């Protein structure tokens, strides 16, 4: 255990940021009671494309661009020994997705992993992070987008049953750069992700998309935080979740701040939850704070509902049995977002997983 432990403010569960999280299931990531193992589990899959550099540097060689109030992120910053760097040179257009793979590390000891992704001016790329297997992982990914660059950042949380994953994915977006993130959480015991965004110049845009499906006993939490601190930036958030089974719990927080300087802001956030059985609970808290009236638009919506009887009736009236009709409706619910990964292979894998979760939940 690290000697730095005493410097942290260990959360009690009463804090706004922690009030939904079952701290006793964080495996000690929040209070330092877990042993840290130097695993270096993140690897680049396949050959390195031209204009792309994948490396590891000692932590003091890579500055932290954005500090965090989150104790797990603070631990990652202080205790990870090195930083994984993925850099894409200016004007590089990477034609195929870059896959980053996390191999299973087991459930004894935790990994603290710091990652830096940086796109040079006018670079374009898709990065897909695949998390699967067993792990206890504290993670901080800083994403720096230079002017005019574009990144589609996909993270797949396909963890197996006992895994615990607490992470921040923080994007800093410069002038006319655009960031699309797609966060998929379908596995693990406890997953707590902080997709956060700050804009550093006008004309920047961020689209945060996500899907999650929690079954019995799983806790999936996504806390979005978007800081509009400069004029004329645009943000869109669309997260869709499904829950089935006893004690399935999801939390979605959408904090959007429009500061006084952020004239011309255009933002909209949406969270929709589908409750597929009793005993599951979806918390959904959109929160918009506006300090200037000179904006293009700002809005949010949050809905939590059950299966639409009319849809099920329509499908069944064509001979489709109930369980199959439910499967179609759930797949359809998620398709809007999953199809935007634009990978048939991943789409089919995720849909199969969703089918499995649905049938496991006894639907």
């Amino acid at each position: 255990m690290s000697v730095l432990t005493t410097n942290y403010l260990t959360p009690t569960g009463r804090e706004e940021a922690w009030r939904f999280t079952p701290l006793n299931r964080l495996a000690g990531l929040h209070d330092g009671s877990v042993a840290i193992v130097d695993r270096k589990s993140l690897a680049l899959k396949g050959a390195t494309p031209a204009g792309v550099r994948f490396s590891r540097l000692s932590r003091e060689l890579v500055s932290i661009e954005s500090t965090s109030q989150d104790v797990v992120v603070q631990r990652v910053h202080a205790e990870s020994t090195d930083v994984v760097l993925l850099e894409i040179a200016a004007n590089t257009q990477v034609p195929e997705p870059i896959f980053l793979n996390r191999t299973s590390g087991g459930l004894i000891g935790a990994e603290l992993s710091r990652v830096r992704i940086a796109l040079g001016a006018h670079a374009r790329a898709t990065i897909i992070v695949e998390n699967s297997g067993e792990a206890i992982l504290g993670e901080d990914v800083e994403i720096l987008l230079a002017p005019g660059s574009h990144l589609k950042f996909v993270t797949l949380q396909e963890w197996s049953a006992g895994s615990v994953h607490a992470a921040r994915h923080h994007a800093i977006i410069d002038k006319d750069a655009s960031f699309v993130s797609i966060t998929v959480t379908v596995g693990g015991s406890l997953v707590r992700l902080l997709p956060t965004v700050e804009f550093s110049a006008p004309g920047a845009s961020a689209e945060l998309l996500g899907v999650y499906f929690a079954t019995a006993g799983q806790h999936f939490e996504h806390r979005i935080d978007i800081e509009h601190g400069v004029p004329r930036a645009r943000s869109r958030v669309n997260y869709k979740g499904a829950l089935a089974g006893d004690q399935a719990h999801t939390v979605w927080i959408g904090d959007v701040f429009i500061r006084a300087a952020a004239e011309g802001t255009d933002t909209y956030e949406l969270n929709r939850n589908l409750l597929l059985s009793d005993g599951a609970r979806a918390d959904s808290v959109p929160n918009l704070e506006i300090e200037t009236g000179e904006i293009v638009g700002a809005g949010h919506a949050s809905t939590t509902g059950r299966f639409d009887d009319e849809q099920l009736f329509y499908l069944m009236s064509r001979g489709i049995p109930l369980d199959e009709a439910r499967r179609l409706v759930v797949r359809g619910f998620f398709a809007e977002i999953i199809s935007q990964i634009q990978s048939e292979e991943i789409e089919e894998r995720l849909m199969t997983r969703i089918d499995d979760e649905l049938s496991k939940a006894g639907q």
Partner: protein
Amino acid sequence: MSTLDIRGLEVSVITEKGPIEILRGVDLTIRSGQTHAVMGPNGSGKSTLAYSIAGHPKYRVTGGSITLDGANVLEMTVDQRAKAGLFLAMQYPVEVPGVSVSNFLRTAATALRGEAPKLRTWVGEVKAAMSALNMDPSFSERNVNEGFSGGEKKRHEIMQLELLKPKIAILDETDSGLDVDALRIVSEGVNRAKAANDLGILLITHYTRILRYIKPDFVHVFANGRVVEEGGPELADKLEAEGYAEYVGS
């Protein structure tokens, strides 16, 4: 040869304020190859009858019976009714986000036929059914009824009728919202299905216009939740001329 037999059917709609009685003893018998037109004022319970036959969960049958060739339809789940040979073309077809028409049709055909149709012949079958109804092939990649115009939804219903080949079809105001050309195209689709499968038809409509294309053998006047008069095709012309005043307000 199939017979759908409706005897003394009483149905309530389930609302938040409790059940409301709508159908008060409906008697109707539809056999293969026959076309029955049902006409009646707004709110008289025509769609309630259609939904009750199909098994919509919003309606509760409180009396009477529905049988198909002697089998108790009321004991069947919604999908079992379709498998037994019943089909409902809805007045307001439902949008199903994220589910493509092609996936939907194939899933339905697989369920009804008991095995997945051979991909080759199936694609041809769907294409033919679409072009017969003047539907652009791009509809198969769109989500079920999502963003379809009123007329496109109705064509989509009749396309399913042709593909899924039921024994008895209930067409609930299939003609509403169709332009003159679409009315003819859709009617031809219904007539093809009838010729191909000796289909029995219960056709709910407000207008005699469609009856010029789909010739009814019987016309039933529906008012206050029951059939109040029956006759041949000439009854439809009388209704068009005189309205329902004679049948309501009793």
